[in-house]
């Protein structure tokens, strides 16, 4: 059981409230853990607002569009053996990103044990999966553009589709690139024993938090842009 669950069981809901009040009324710092992790969470909150605003705007723009919205199942399909499989590559991309979230979570668990080789191997795997995701997204973009879908135009239907699609997936892809750079840097530091030298492996967890956020955003992009 976690700290506050134990407190809650021991003292009822009042202990949970006391914990919140204690944190917010403390003198020097509110969150009783390192700056790195606290700031990554605050950054994640702000980025949630960025993507949340984009998705809200996408809803309004799509509702107000006078021309038909493209059938995503058709636009994003792969033809296997003569049969058109809707959203196949997108489904694969989703599985790959979820898997990379799994590997980074296991990597963070390994970092708690300060197991250098295990942490590094799992970070490496996360990087490979993330790079695969990025490559597939790049392929989707190329394919779309080749079909005539641009940020400003759509060969058959609402031009707003391209605008919202490229902007939102573009922002997400940029976050993936930044995440890959961050993970690579942490991986190198793990391999060089840097975190043993400075005494804390917290950066692995911080990088993991960022990467989970990237997956989290994709969960909503997958739902709203591709399915709904």
């Amino acid at each position, binding site marked *: 059981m*976690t700290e506050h669950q134990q407190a809650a069981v021991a003292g009822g809901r009042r202990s*949970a409230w006391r914990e919140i009040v204690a944190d917010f009324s403390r003198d020097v710092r509110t*969150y009783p853990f390192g700056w790195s992790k606290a700031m990554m969470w605050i950054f994640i909150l702000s980025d949630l607002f960025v993507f949340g605003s984009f998705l809200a705007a996408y809803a309004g723009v799509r509702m107000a*569009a006078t021309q038909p919205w493209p059938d995503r199942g058709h636009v994003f399909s792969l033809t296997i053996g003569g049969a058109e499989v809707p959203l196949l590559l997108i*489904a694969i991309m989703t599985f790959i990103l979820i898997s990379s979230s*799994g590997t980074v979570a296991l990597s963070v668990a390994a970092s708690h044990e300060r197991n250098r080789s295990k942490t590094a191997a799992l970070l490496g795997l996360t990087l490979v999966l993330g790079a695969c995701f990025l490559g597939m997204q790049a392929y989707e973009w190329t394919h779309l553009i080749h079909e005539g879908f641009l940020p400003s135009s759509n060969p058959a239907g609402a031009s707003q589709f391209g605008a919202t699609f490229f902007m939102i997936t573009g922002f997400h892809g940029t976050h993936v690139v930044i995440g890959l750079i961050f993970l690579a840097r942490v991986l190198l530091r793990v391999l060089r024993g840097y975190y043993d030298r400075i005494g804390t492996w917290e950066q692995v967890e911080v990088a993991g938090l960022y990467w989970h956020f990237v997956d989290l955003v994709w*969960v909503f992009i997958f739902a709203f842009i591709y399915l709904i």
Partner: protein
Amino acid sequence: MHGHADHVDHSEHQAHLPVGVYLRVWFMLFILSAVSYFVDYFQVEPLPLRWVLIVLLALIKAALIMNYFMHLGSERLSLVYTILLPPVLILALAAIVIAEGSYTSMIRALFGG
């Protein structure tokens, strides 16, 4: 990148979840993603139900990722509420934008363009 003052993580309270939890959550995320894919593939009717299911599945996936992978479930409540309460404002924004969108759509239908 780090200050010597704060690598002394007095509360390097690290959430230690058994590996099995990560694997089970991972598996659940696959299942939920597959279900939402098929809700769309089989074109579940009525349409609002399809959308409700897809959004619900996305929210459950998000909750699993935040609670277990990001360890929010093991963190201080002050952090949990810091992260979960402000996004309610995003829902308010979405509601307003959707109301506006429906109005704009009507105006465009009536007056063209």
